[in-house]
């Protein structure tokens, strides 16, 4: 019995560790580019252009590049519309929380810029989604934000 107790003491934590290997929240390991492509296939962006983490600067979010493992985003390159979607895979969930704050700031800047500029486009920003899931930070400001979130969450939920 004593051996059983020792084994149980050793194996149960090991089993728990294995179960929690993805870090608390159960999130699938996805390629951000796949997620962004899947979104824009369903919710197109006019004059949309896709970029990865090497061009994160032009997303105007001031996310610390050192905290990003990989990223993909698409936005309206003509400047006419506020449409944008970004999936940013951070190194830790804490990094993702900071990235979310930066994305929230970006959203607020966009709201300030577009309120008087193109009021008809404001519904995209007013219904925008900025959130984290595991190590991922997500920004969605599109014509159908719910649909886009459903697609991204579907991938992240595995």
């Amino acid at each position, binding site marked *: 019995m004593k051996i059983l107790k020792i084994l149980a003491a050793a194996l149960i934590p090991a089993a728990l560790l294995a179960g929690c*290997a993805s870090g608390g929240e159960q999130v699938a390991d996805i390629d951000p580019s796949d997620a962004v492509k899947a979104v*824009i296939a369903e919710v197109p962006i006019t004059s949309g252009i896709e970029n990865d983490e090497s061009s994160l600067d032009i997303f105007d979010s001031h996310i610390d590049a050192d905290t990003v493992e990989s990223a993909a985003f698409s936005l309206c390159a003509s400047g006419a519309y506020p449409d944008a979607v970004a999936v940013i895979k951070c190194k830790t969930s804490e990094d993702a929380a900071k990235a979310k704050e930066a994305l929230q700031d970006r959203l607020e800047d966009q709201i300030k810029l577009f309120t008087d500029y193109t009021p008809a486009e404001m519904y995209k920003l007013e219904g925008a989604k900025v959130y984290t899931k595991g190590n991922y930070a997500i920004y969605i400001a599109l014509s159908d934000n719910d649909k886009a979130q459903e697609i991204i969450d579907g991938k992240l939920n595995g």
Partner: protein
Amino acid sequence: MARTNKKANGLSVAIVALNIVIVGIIILLIVLVYMHMKEEVDNGRDGSLSPTMTESGETSTTTPAEPNTQNTSETDTPVSDSSSTGTDAPVSDTTTTPSVNVNPLNYNKEFFKDDMFIGDSISTGLYLYGFLDQDNVFAETGLNPESALTYEKDGLTCAGKAQLLQPRNIYIMLGTNGLAFLDGQYMCNKLVELIAQLETACPTAKIYVISIPPVTAVHEAEGNETMTKVLAYNNALKSMCQQGGFTYIDLCSVLQDETGYLSANYAEADGLHFLSAAYIRMLNYVEQCAQ
């Protein structure tokens, strides 16, 4: 008999314990193998990420331009100085379709590496499409000649950025956003103030004033920005340049179609902003003017 049972019981406990140990070791091995494999998969995924932009294949999405370092074969007569007569016809078939089919090989990114563009949301497209580096552009949605005097982006006004960059050439294309609510002459006066700021910030820079672009007939029908207002403002800009000794670039004529409106080859769906083909045309033309 009792002694035999005791011995058998002792053997049974030992076998059970041994089995448990073996199962435990197997579980531990499985966990270790799983973690090792997961690590390998993660590494493999990282290694496959391209550092460059990727083509999506979606009809509404394109990849940023990859300009070459050669100038091309466009044959417009550039209109510099203050005597514009730009009358180019809209351009070739390679730029007639929406952004996905743009030929990116006909402008010279290298030419603009020491230059700076100042503008509104239309000019943001210069770096959002990937035609120029963001460092070479100071542009923001809604910017006009008045707000450009004080607007700060990342803690810098455009004069502040110019002071930092010390560009060789500065190109200003502002005014579209003021057409609906600012007087044209007032905007020109504000541009003169802006140019004074820029001349103080970088005295060696050559400053060019680019006309605001045309709009489509559909956009005009919405009422805010009309071709009458565009042309009147551009005329005021040209006069301002003549009086102030600044160089005026008539981009408007280059982007107009035979009816005088923004060519469908260049027009974004809103009839005001640019498809990527327009930036290629713009950069090609501006380069010719600046040369």
